[in-house]
């Protein structure tokens, strides 16, 4: 992937594509802004998602109330931690125990483990409406102790992030 051209003296054998730099078919549209990436697609009745994110680095999620958001005209729906557990399996953990015992989902379940972790997803008719509706979601947290020094993560007296693993060393 990194070597894109060959020295001309190596192109003695002129059979097919061997030894030649072949112009890429996609370049023409990509340099003109005509590539179609996921975010460029529009569909009839398409919704826009906005995430309610954790304001704490470490906290228990006590309660989630999406009723005010759902009541807003133009809101298609919400996805809560409880629903994510019901509707999806935990992500496959590509590692050995104890790391493989960690259960995690597309949204924070039970507790949040970093600031900005997605807790609730809100889907609405427009980007702005999704954001407004997300503001109406009430999440109650119970803040937990945090650890800000990665070098101390192995110590005994520090908070453990994933109880499933029972240790911060995974």
């Amino acid at each position, binding site marked *: *992937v*990194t070597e*894109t*051209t060959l020295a001309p003296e190596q192109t003695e054998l002129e059979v097919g594509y061997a030894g030649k730099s072949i*112009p*890429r078919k*996609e*370049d*023409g549209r*990509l*340099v*003109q*802004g*005509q*590539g*179609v*990436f996921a*975010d*460029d697609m529009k569909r009839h009745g398409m919704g826009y998602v906005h995430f309610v994110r954790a304001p704490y680095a470490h906290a228990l999620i006590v309660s989630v109330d999406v009723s005010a958001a759902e009541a807003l005209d133009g809101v298609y729906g919400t996805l809560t931690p409880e629903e994510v557990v019901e509707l999806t399996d935990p992500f496959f953990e590509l590692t050995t125990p104890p790391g493989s015992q960690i259960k995690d989902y597309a949204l924070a379940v039970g507790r949040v483990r970093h600031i900005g972790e997605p807790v609730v997803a809100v889907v609405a008719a427009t*980007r*702005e409406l999704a954001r407004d509706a997300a503001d109406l979601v009430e999440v109650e947290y119970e803040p937990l102790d945090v650890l800000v020094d990665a070098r101390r993560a192995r110590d005994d007296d520090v908070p453990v992030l994933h109880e499933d693993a029972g240790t911060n060393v995974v």
Partner: protein
Amino acid sequence: VSDHTIAVTVNGERYEREVEARKLLVHFIRDDLDLTGTHVGCDTGNCGACTVLLDGTAVKSCMLLAPQADGTEITTVEGLAPDGELTPLQKAFSEHHGLQCGYCTPGMLLSATFLLSHTSKPTDEEIRRGIQGNICRCTGYVNIVKAIKAASEQ
């Protein structure tokens, strides 16, 4: 939330639209004008994928509100080669493998266009400074710098 009527000229075409005060210029360009060549990579001003020319100067369009662009002239990647005849920069990016997935390419091209508009024969260092606000996560910068250099030599 207040609405504003704004008039902008984008790639030579004049648009008059009503927008919410909080709408980002990049969302105005992408959602309201359907010019999706301008990408959103981070919407925090770090990545430069949303770079456009605003009255000839390269700006990150996620760092401006649409009403701030009222009365300006904007060039997006779609406006670089309006009749399909690629600019030397666009050709050089392809010829020197300055793009792979192409996501950062529009922003790179606009930053490079701005650079060459005021520094016609930039050194490698000036090129690197010129694209320091644009992040590429797959091609790498070496071929992008080569491409800009080659375009400047034409």
